[in-house]
């Protein structure tokens, strides 16, 4: 309904403009007919005024958007240590942009209105002025120098991890494939075992080198758990095509490139539970649930199933086009307190064990491994794969 209304409003607006020009056509009928299709004083005047009105339109659009959609999750409530650094730079840049935008658009449209042409009026011959050029190339240069310095400082802080910090950190592999994520934890030794897609076989779906001593305690999970307050170093791998591990709440993103291991690291600072308590998040979740309830009513009325209510969770999204179901490649991320994280780590079946049990099961069922048994084995490792993206490939 709102859509229809918007469509109608915009259409009416367009018709109004059309009529305006028509009226304008008619006003000229009596006078000396201007059929040259070249703008005359009247055109200049009307369009000059519309130019000025258009400035208003730009400002109103800006205000409307900031007011209604300006509640930007990417500007506040970050959940990582470097988050505020990024958000701060973003805010500074945005304020700067809005100032420059407001001033330059005003000058542009005001001049277009103010100096609209009239017969007999002569423009000023003003061809160049080096001082002016110097002023408006040096001001942006200085401002940009500031932004560049701040940006590079933050970039270096984020991308380079000190050797000492590295020893302290947890190493987790993010493994991407069409169209789901998996995480591989490095276990007690905190070193990931070697891996390559050529090792993929049966339950060893991450391609871990099972003979590597470092790989013995590695385990896989389909839900990413990380502890609050501890540096996490993510090593990204991809099995098939390019993916991008996007963790918007942590201001983190890195592509997953087949044939190479990429890295991104951050320190989570807010647990999932704490995040859910934040007023801004509560408000957002409530709003979304209202929308979903409304949608559900419609769905139920049409005999379809209602939508589940939404609870806040951190997410890992794929943000590089990776195939037909790219739009649904996600993994739940849980930030635990250090204690909860320790509890979660307990009794995790290592990949090596999983492969062994899968092999034993295969023997039990007598027959040599067939593809159907293979998939069963995979399921034992990826226990809660239903929570991950449903990878229905429409073909």
């Amino acid at each position, binding site marked *: 309904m709102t859509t229809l209304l918007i469509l109608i409003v*915009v259409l009416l607006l367009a018709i109004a403009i059309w009529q305006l020009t028509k009226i304008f056509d008619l006003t000229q009928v009596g006078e000396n007919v201007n059929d040259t299709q070249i703008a005359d004083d009247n055109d200049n005047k009307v369009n000059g005024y519309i130019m000025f009105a258009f400035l208003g339109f730009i400002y109103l659009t800006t205000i409307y958007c900031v007011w209604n959609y300006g509640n930007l999750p990417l500007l506040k409530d970050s959940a990582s240590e470097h988050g505020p650094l990024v958000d701060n730079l973003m805010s500074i840049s945005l304020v700067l942009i809005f100032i420059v935008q407001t001033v330059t658009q005003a000058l542009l449209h005001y001049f277009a209105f103010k100096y609209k042409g009239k017969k007999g009026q002569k423009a000023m011959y003003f061809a160049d002025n080096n001082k002016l050029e110097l002023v408006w190339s040096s001001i942006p240069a200085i401002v940009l120098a500031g932004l560049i310095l701040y940006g590079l400082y933050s970039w270096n802080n984020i991308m380079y991890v000190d050797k000492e910090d590295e020893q302290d950190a947890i190493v987790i592999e993010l493994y991407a494939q069409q169209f789901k994520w998996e995480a591989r934890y490095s276990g007690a030794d905190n070193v990931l075992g070697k891996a390559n897609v050529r090792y993929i076989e049966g339950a060893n779906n991450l391609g871990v080198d099972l003979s590597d001593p470092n790989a013995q305690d590695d385990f896989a999970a389909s839900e990413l758990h990380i502890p609050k307050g501890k540096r996490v170093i993510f090593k990204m791998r991809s099995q098939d095509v390019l993916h991008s591990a996007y963790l918007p709440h942590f201001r983190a993103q890195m592509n997953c490139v087949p044939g190479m291991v990429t890295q991104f690291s951050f320190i989570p600072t807010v647990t999932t539970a704490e995040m859910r308590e934040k007023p801004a998040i509560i408000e957002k979740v409530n709003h979304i649930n209202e929308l979903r309830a409304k949608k559900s009513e419609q769905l139920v009325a049409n005999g379809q199933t209602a939508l589940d209510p939404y609870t806040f969770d951190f997410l890992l999204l794929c943000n590089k086009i990776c195939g037909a179901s790219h*739009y649904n490649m996600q993994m739940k991320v849980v930030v635990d307190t250090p204690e909860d994280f320790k509890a979660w780590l307990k009794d995790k079946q290592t990949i090596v064990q999983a492969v062994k049990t899968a092999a034993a099961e295969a023997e039990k069922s007598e027959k040599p491994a067939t593809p159907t048994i293979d998939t069963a084995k995979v399921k034992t490792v990826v226990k809660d794969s239903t929570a991950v993206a449903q990878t229905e490939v429409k073909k």
Partner: protein
Amino acid sequence: MSAEAHNHGHEHDHDHGHEHHHKDTFITKYIFSIDHKMISKQYLITGIFMGIIGIVMSLLFRMQLAWPEESFKIFNVLLGDKFAPNGVMTNEIYLALITIHGTIMVFFVLTAGLSGTFSNLLIPLQIGARDMASGFLNMVSYWLFFLSSVIMVISLFVESGPASAGWTIYPPLSALPQAISGSGAGMTLWLVSMAIFIASSLLGSLNYIVTVINLRTKGMSMTRLPLTVWAFFITAIIGVISFPVLLSAALLLIFDRSFGTSFFLSDIYLAGEVLNYQGGSPVLFEHLFWFLGHPEVYIVLLPALGITSEVIATNSRKPIFGYRAMIMSIIAIAFLSTIVWGHHMFISGMNPFLGSVFTFTTLLIAIPSAVKAFNYITTLWKGNLQMNPAMLFSIGLVSTFITGGLTGIILGDSTLDINVHDTYFVVAHFHLVMGISALYGMFAGIYHWFPRMFGRMLNKNLGYVHFWVTAICAYGVFFPMHFIGMAGLPRRYYTNTNFPLFDDLQNVNVIITAFALVGGAFQLVFLWNFFHSIFYGKKSVQNPWKSNTLEWTAPIEHMHGNWPGELPEVHRWAYDYSKPGHDEDFVPQNVPMKPDEEVLHH
């Protein structure tokens, strides 16, 4: 000196040739023409046709985004039962639509349709030459473009669907048909089409460069060239520098796809088996692609800025402000554009140190861009603005160039890019700064030079309607898009319904689509105006806009060789508008300086 001598010889040929003018058959005049004016019309009409396809595609996927997985009769009609069963768009065709939309708009409309049209039309006419340096190569260039357009359109009809790996065609997705069905025959045709397109673009660009350097008429020094010609000239140079790199990327990708090489592929397990590729790197492809891809932005934009410079000066009845600064900024932008490609790859896995370097070079581009914007604004100041439709589009261009360009400061900053990379923020940014701005430049060019091309005028009131609705809708579409991007919404998602997190952005998507549909519909006003006016428009006078440049000193009738008799001689720069000491507010370039007249510009 030698150029002049050459010109003389050339002139002689054509004077001679002119007597046999009537021997032109329909085929040599309209189809395999070697006349630059005819070729420019061919470019324009082919470009408009491709533009219709590109824009209709965008409207289709905008509808899907606003009303995800709802059934529309139009989907079924246009996409067929396979890609829109029961009128519901499938996710595969959605990706194909965005891919082909991007390809067509960037290459076929805004590179060939814009630069091809106006470089061809204006370079010989504005520098006072009979034709391009090589009319034959020029013809070949157009027909290669036509061929590549035909192949691209054919690729829409192959059974497995058109290319659907995004217009950036990153491998491995684009290399492996197992990864996405569009990477089969559709992708092959895409690559063939682009390879031919690049050949066409190179032939065209070389021709433009040679023509500008060698065929300027007497008195037309480089610093008297109109800014349009400067823009086309520099555009051609960056085209020649960067397009071959894309060709090499395309060729290597063809090798990977068809001959089993591993330039871009390594360690891939797909559809249950390990593929043989070893040792290649997709990041290498990204480097090669963006080495063209970023200059491409300026290949699209610079001609639009050149056209705008000319249109704004003419319609302000004022010299363009800071002529030399404008040239310097065009050159600076062109130079910088070739060393900033890495800002598309901050998070691609390349060394973070490179990220720092590219942040630095990228933000530098803001300086010449700011100079251009301020110069345009100052040109309007104390002018006598004639609000012709071309002028409106030029002012519109400056407006969207500023709005879209400013957000580049965010995207060019590696730190901030981490979080808005590949979100709708990027989509909003580049559509405003290169898509809409370049389209406005193209429209400005069409409204301004239509009389020169067809000898008739476009209807101005329809032009006003076209501009104002387009201007409102362009902002209506792309301004809110920044905000959904800053909320973290990734681009190229078929639907956002799998993320309750984004549920509150759905109403914004509906608004955006509404504006897009209205804006798209009003392009019909332009199309009608354009095609109707070719045949029934008001007959034009020789110099309707009272402009200074040489193209308006040539007769209206279509004739090969542009000027009957001798070529005009140039005595002044192109921007003596409202010069004190003259009765009229314009002094064409071929008017000799008065005995006591001073050069008032630097």
